[in-house]
């Protein structure tokens, strides 16, 4: 974000949708409820795409490990940082009888011992111990290591790919997103506040709810409504949106006139001596200033900016705001349920007032998630009736149109290269 652009005229411009070359036709609802579409989505999207799983800060030192699930594919992934500082993912599955190897979610270990019969593996995946090996029949230890999963990193984000030989590299998969978000200085990357929720909605219904602002004055009037809309832009039209291969970046309007409401006395207390600001910022001005200096943060350099959603296909949002960044993971569980995880990154507070503002932020985030949780369940109920075949999308719902179009394209493409072309 460089010189701020104080002008705003969202009425007299071309549409973002048409400028990006997207269709303006209604978008089908069948992908949001169909069991057969869901099965194809699992096979052709989640088993073929590179999937963002974690940040490297979750593996802070040699020997660190984390376990993450890919729920739609029923895969538990063990990710280790081994002695050559190599980050590698494995199926969390013992080579002996296929038992789940570790049931802990994170820690530090040089070796992993299967609880069933104590087969033992190094954190490089090698099988190093079989109790009573003499009683087996020529078992070849070298062939019985943990099964690796293709792993790569980009800008501190760890990706895996469930294809035994991925059809495309991570670089090819990221396409223009690779450079667009290069060299981000993510503040507080080692200190996320983490929320999890099981939602009664297709994962795309949830992702869609987090990528458009058209709903904000309606669904979040108390919690964040005044941050995103004002008389200048009462329906919270988008500042900008662009496709980046299957990925995309959406920049949202913010109410520059937003000031602390004196009736919000607790919030006033947190800000006393400091400056006012958006309720979706997580504090620490210095690190935040460095972060928002990046050209892909507030890409139109608008004075009326609240946040950006950067969607990493298929199921991750990396969101940027004036106070830093946060991520949403939307994992499919079934055609109409999903697992949500939100990770809100913040520098550990150095003063109690800073910590107080973080607590304020956390309580507000929890209520916003709760508002969305109720809303997405209601949306899914409506979709599941089968009464409607299409949704009507307006220009501010650009993000929904692009992501659904891309999902359908991946489902219909025989190769990943076709899907990306």
């Amino acid at each position, binding site marked *: 974000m460089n010189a701020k652009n104080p002008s705003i005229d969202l009425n007299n411009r071309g549409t973002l949708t048409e400028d990006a070359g997207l269709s303006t036709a209604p978008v089908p609802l069948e992908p949001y409820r169909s069991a057969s579409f869901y099965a194809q989505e699992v096979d052709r999207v989640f088993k073929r795409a590179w999937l963002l799983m974690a940040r490297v800060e979750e593996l802070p030192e040699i020997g660190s490990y984390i376990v993450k699930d890919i729920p739609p594919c029923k895969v538990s992934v063990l990710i280790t940082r081994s002695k050559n500082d190599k980050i590698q993912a494995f199926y969390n599955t013992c080579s002996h009888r296929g038992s789940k190897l570790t049931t802990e979610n994170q820690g530090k270990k040089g070796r992993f011992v299967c609880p069933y019969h104590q087969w033992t593996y190094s954190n490089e995946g090698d099988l190093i111990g079989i109790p009573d090996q003499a009683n087996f029949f020529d078992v070849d230890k070298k062939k019985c290591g943990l099964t690796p999963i293709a792993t790569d990193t980009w800008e501190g984000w760890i990706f895996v790919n469930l294809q035994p030989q991925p059809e495309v590299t991570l670089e090819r998969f990221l396409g223009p997103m690779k450079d667009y978000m290069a060299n981000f200085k993510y503040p507080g990357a080692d200190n996320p506040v983490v*929320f999890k929720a099981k939602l009664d909605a297709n994962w795309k219904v949830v992702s869609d709810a987090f990528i458009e602002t058209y709903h904000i004055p309606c669904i979040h009037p108390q919690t964040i409504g005044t941050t995103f809309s004002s008389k200048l832009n009462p329906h919270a039209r988008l500042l900008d949106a662009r496709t980046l291969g299957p990925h995309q970046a959406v920049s949202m309007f913010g109410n520059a006139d937003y000031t602390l409401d004196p009736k919000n*006395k607790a919030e006033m207390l947190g800000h006393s001596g400091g400056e006012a600001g958006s309720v979706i910022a997580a504090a620490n001005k210095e690190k935040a200033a460095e972060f928002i200096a990046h050209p892909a943060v507030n890409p139109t350099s608008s004075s009326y900016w609240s946040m950006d959603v950067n969607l990493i296909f298929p199921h991750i949002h990396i969101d940027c705001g004036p106070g830093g960044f946060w991520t949403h993971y939307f994992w499919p569980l079934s055609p109409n349920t999903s697992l949500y995880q939100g990770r809100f990154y913040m520098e550990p*507070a150095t003063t109690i007032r800073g910590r107080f503002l973080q*607590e304020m932020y956390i309580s507000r985030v929890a209520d916003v998630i709760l508002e969305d949780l*109720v809303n997405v369940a209601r949306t899914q109920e409506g979709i599941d009736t089968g009464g409607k075949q299409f949704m009507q999308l307006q220009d501010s719902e650009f993000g929904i149109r692009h992501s659904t179009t891309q999902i359908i394209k991946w489902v219909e493409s025989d190769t990943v290269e076709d899907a990306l072309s």
Partner: protein
Amino acid sequence: MTINATTKLLPEGYEALESFVPKWVKDTSAERMTERATSTMAEIQTFYNAILPLADDAMALIDNYPIDDMPDDIACLCKLVLALPQVAMAVELHGQPRLPNTPYPHGIELLRGTPPFG
């Protein structure tokens, strides 16, 4: 926490808040969230009314100590102050303990907070 009658839970000047310690002093944000969600509006309002006028001075006092190494009475006061944002959501935004028109329990889990006392 064991409550010992001979030691004071809170620093001098904050005796008026002692009666709120058992209910509102929590170690994590998740527990604070649950406490607000399962309290009556009268309980929330009484605590809010008591702590709001003292919170500014309390934060000035707490800031005299390292944020990661507070004496027990200061840490206790700190946890009490950190309960204010939660109850403020109820008092200042919703006018009721929980977000209107939402279920409880709601299935949202706070898995990890931020230090201290997150």
